[in-house]
């Protein structure tokens, strides 16, 4: 009996001590709250201290990205950010390290999105995900990415350095879900050699396009002349695949819209869509644009036709500029090779996407890529449940670091995307900095240097920097496709309609009816899309 009483007392004492310890732990966890102050070094150090106190020596993160081969900084920016934060910790005697365990990079951004969508609920998706802002609404709506609105408040000065339209593109329902990583414009490229053969004076063309004096009727006129006089095989080449985002520029160029902010619904602007389809139809019927271009092969047909001067016009993206230099599309002399920077400069003129008709304005279109944070970021790390907020804040700080002007500027120069920050835009005009990049004599990790070395050699030169500087003004004319979860489905229907008019299977009128029918056939899509306006009756193209 006495022994039993002693055991009971011992148990009670143990219980009290244990609860004290647990209580102590709780106190420790409450200390784990770190308020972001906007002082980057201070915030990183605070977070490092909390991690260290909790026995965390290594924080693992993975980065998923996608895009053309020159855009690998979309993942190596994260690697570099980790190194810079590790350095801060080391300098402050904090024994914690970030390790980027995986840099998953694939060519197709749509495939990357599909992979993220299926793996995020299983907890197998990357901690950082860079992809088109077009997917952000769905990811945010499903709770798959982190709302960083509150974190960003402390870093307002950094946020203010981004171009405002790009920050808007990173929001959904008024909340911030990512930071812009890059953007671009979609110029109309013109072959100077073909233009010269037909007497097409390109001097001052930029201004005429800006003023809306040079419209798509003029594009038609010169394309036809180039074809008729045998100066080129085609008048115009454009991209294939989804009508988003390249071809929907026509809707904006004809003064149309795709989204009604008052109702929050997508819009099929019938007059603008009709005019767009009519232009495509007319070009294809007159043999100026291949009727089967939507099934052309990128590497064997589209790019070679453009770089070999077999077309007068080409609708492309700014990234073509460096892609033409690093990929072997040019085979006119036999062995395929990339273009030299001088050749790209001497052969191509570039302007905004002209106005659809007189009285309208020129446009361009951007599809910003956005750095997003997985809502489960850091989940594979120790004490995730207790330190979730710390890991998420650390992930946010990594995005802030990965957005450093120099990292952003490197990405812009080597991939011909436009910088997203004003400070980065200044940097790409700095010759000294460019020379440092060319020699890879910058404060970058060896891993990053070895992964971008070849691309840097092929692309960093004054010609490419000048190109970026020249096209930057286009952002003033930029439009963004609506960030709406149903937009990809609508863009897909547009693509089908374009293909049918190009092939001559449908007239523009029939194609507009087809779009309306397709939208109305799906009750969910129909609820989210407004059909506005009528097919214009006496509209003519080309106009005099």
């Amino acid at each position: 009996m006495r022994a039993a009483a002693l055991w009971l007392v011992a148990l009670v004492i143990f219980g009290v001590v244990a609860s004290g310890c647990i209580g102590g732990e709780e106190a420790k966890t409450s200390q784990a709250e770190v308020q972001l102050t906007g002082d980057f070094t201070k915030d990183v150090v605070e977070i490092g201290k909390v991690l260290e106190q909790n026995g965390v020596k290594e924080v693992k993160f993975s980065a998923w990205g996608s895009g053309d081969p020159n855009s690998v900084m979309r993942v190596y920016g994260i690697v570099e950010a980790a190194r810079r934060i590790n350095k801060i910790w080391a300098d402050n005697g904090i024994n914690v390290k970030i390790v980027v365990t995986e840099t998953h990079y694939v060519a197709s951004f749509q495939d990357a999105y599909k992979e993220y969508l299926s793996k995020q609920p299983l907890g197998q998706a990357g901690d950082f995900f860079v992809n088109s802002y077009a997917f952000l609404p769905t990811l945010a709506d499903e709770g798959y990415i982190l709302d960083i609105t509150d974190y960003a408040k402390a870093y307002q000065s950094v946020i203010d350095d981004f171009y405002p339209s790009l920050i808007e593109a990173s929001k959904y329902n008024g909340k911030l879900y990512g930071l812009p990583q890059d953007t671009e414009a979609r110029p109309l490229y013109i072959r100077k050699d073909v233009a010269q053969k037909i007497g097409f004076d390109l001097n001052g063309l930029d201004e005429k396009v800006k003023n809306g004096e040079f419209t798509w009727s003029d594009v038609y006129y010169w394309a036809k002349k180039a074809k008729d006089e045998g100066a080129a095989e085609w008048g115009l080449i454009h991209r294939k695949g989804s009508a988003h985002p390249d071809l929907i520029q026509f809707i904006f160029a004809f003064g149309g819209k795709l989204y009604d902010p008052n109702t929050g619904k997508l819009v099929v602007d019938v007059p603008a869509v009709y005019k767009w389809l009519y232009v495509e139809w007319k070009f294809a019927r007159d043999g100026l644009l291949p009727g089967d271009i939507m099934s052309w092969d990128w590497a064997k047909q589209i790019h070679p036709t453009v770089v070999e001067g077999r077309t007068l016009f080409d609708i492309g993206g700014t990234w073509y500029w460096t892609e033409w230099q690093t990929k072997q599309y040019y085979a006119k002399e036999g062995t395929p090779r990339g273009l030299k920077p001088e050749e790209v400069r001497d052969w191509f003129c570039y302007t905004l996407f002209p106005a659809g008709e007189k009285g309208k304005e020129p446009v361009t279109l951007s599809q910003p890529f956005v750095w997003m944070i997985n809502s489960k970021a850091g989940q594979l790390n120790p004490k995730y449940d207790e330190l979730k907020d710390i890991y998420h804040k650390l992930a946010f700080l990594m995005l802030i670091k990965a957005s450093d002007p120099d990292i952003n500027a490197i990405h812009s120069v080597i991939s011909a995307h436009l910088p997203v920050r004003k400070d980065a835009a200044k940097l790409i005009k700095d010759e000294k900095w460019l020379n440092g990049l060319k020699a890879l004599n910058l404060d970058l990790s060896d891993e990053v240097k070895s992964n971008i070395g070849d691309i840097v050699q092929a692309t960093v030169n004054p010609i490419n920097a000048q190109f970026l500087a020249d096209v930057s003004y286009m952002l003033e004319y930029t439009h963004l496709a609506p960030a709406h979860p149903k937009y990809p489905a609508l863009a897909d229907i547009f693509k089908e309609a374009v293909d049918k008019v190009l092939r001559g299977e449908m007239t523009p009128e029939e194609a507009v009816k087809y779009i309306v029918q397709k939208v109305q056939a799906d009750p969910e899509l129909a609820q989210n899309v407004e059909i506005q306006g009528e097919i214009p009756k006496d509209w003519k193209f080309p106009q005099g």
Partner: protein
Amino acid sequence: MTKGKLRDLSFFLSPMVLMVFLFYLVPLVMTIYISMTRMRNWNVERYLTEFVGLYNYERLFYMFQHDPTFKAVIMTTLVFVGITLVINVFGGLALALATFFINERPASSYRLLWLLPRMSPIAVYSLVWYYFFHGSEIGTLNSILMSLGFISQPIPWGQVTPWGAWSVIIFVNGLVGVSFGMIVFTSALNQIPKELVIAARVDGASSWQISRRILIPMIKWHLLYVLTWQFLSLLTTYPHLFLLVQWDLVNRDYGTTLALYVFNTAFGRGEQDQGLAAAAAVILSIIGILGGFVTLKVLKFERMMKKPRGDF
């Protein structure tokens, strides 16, 4: 049935019963359940309990009625399954018979050749046909025909609707499927006592007569098996079709079967609507079950299953 017999049966059948339960019944029940939820974008946590009854079926039928291209999907499914089935079964039979009458060594090599499409990775195999049928002068077929002077302009094979698109998908899938029948029939033919063939030869029968009167009747059940198997397989196949459509080689409307429609709805780009896809999959399963049942009934499958006489 005695207890002992029941125990023996349970012992031998249980692995199969378990397999059927785990890999057929459970997914089927799950598919039916998902078809009655608003499941999308793989958000199981959020939508699995959001029960919407027959909403997805109603939406699907509404789309069937009003979508201008849905008729093409139905027609494509019928034509694709019908013609490819005939090619797979009778092509396989022809190949098996052809190799039956030649020496074993060349016959093996010949059979191996027909197995290549099945052994090649789907993407590689599809890419070969992508370049072969490409609708421009870079397409192998077009460049051959143009250099021989048969055509002056390249023909967009897969974009000529409907038969151009149908021909390409039937050709590509037919080549893959034909080897299955060939293997089954070859194996069945090898079980037939050689004496029968030798005796018929001695009596002066030609290869055609031997095939028609002796060989084909003796592999009737194998024919039935291949026919049913290939029917169900073709009804649900989509990987080659997916790539050919994705790469814009064939017209999307006339290159999409119901199975591909299900896949694209569940895993396609843009919004991934697993609830709607599950509803379409349930309808596809019903068609498959009915089709399989009718095939077996018409061809009197149960006669093969009855007890052999004399041995018991």
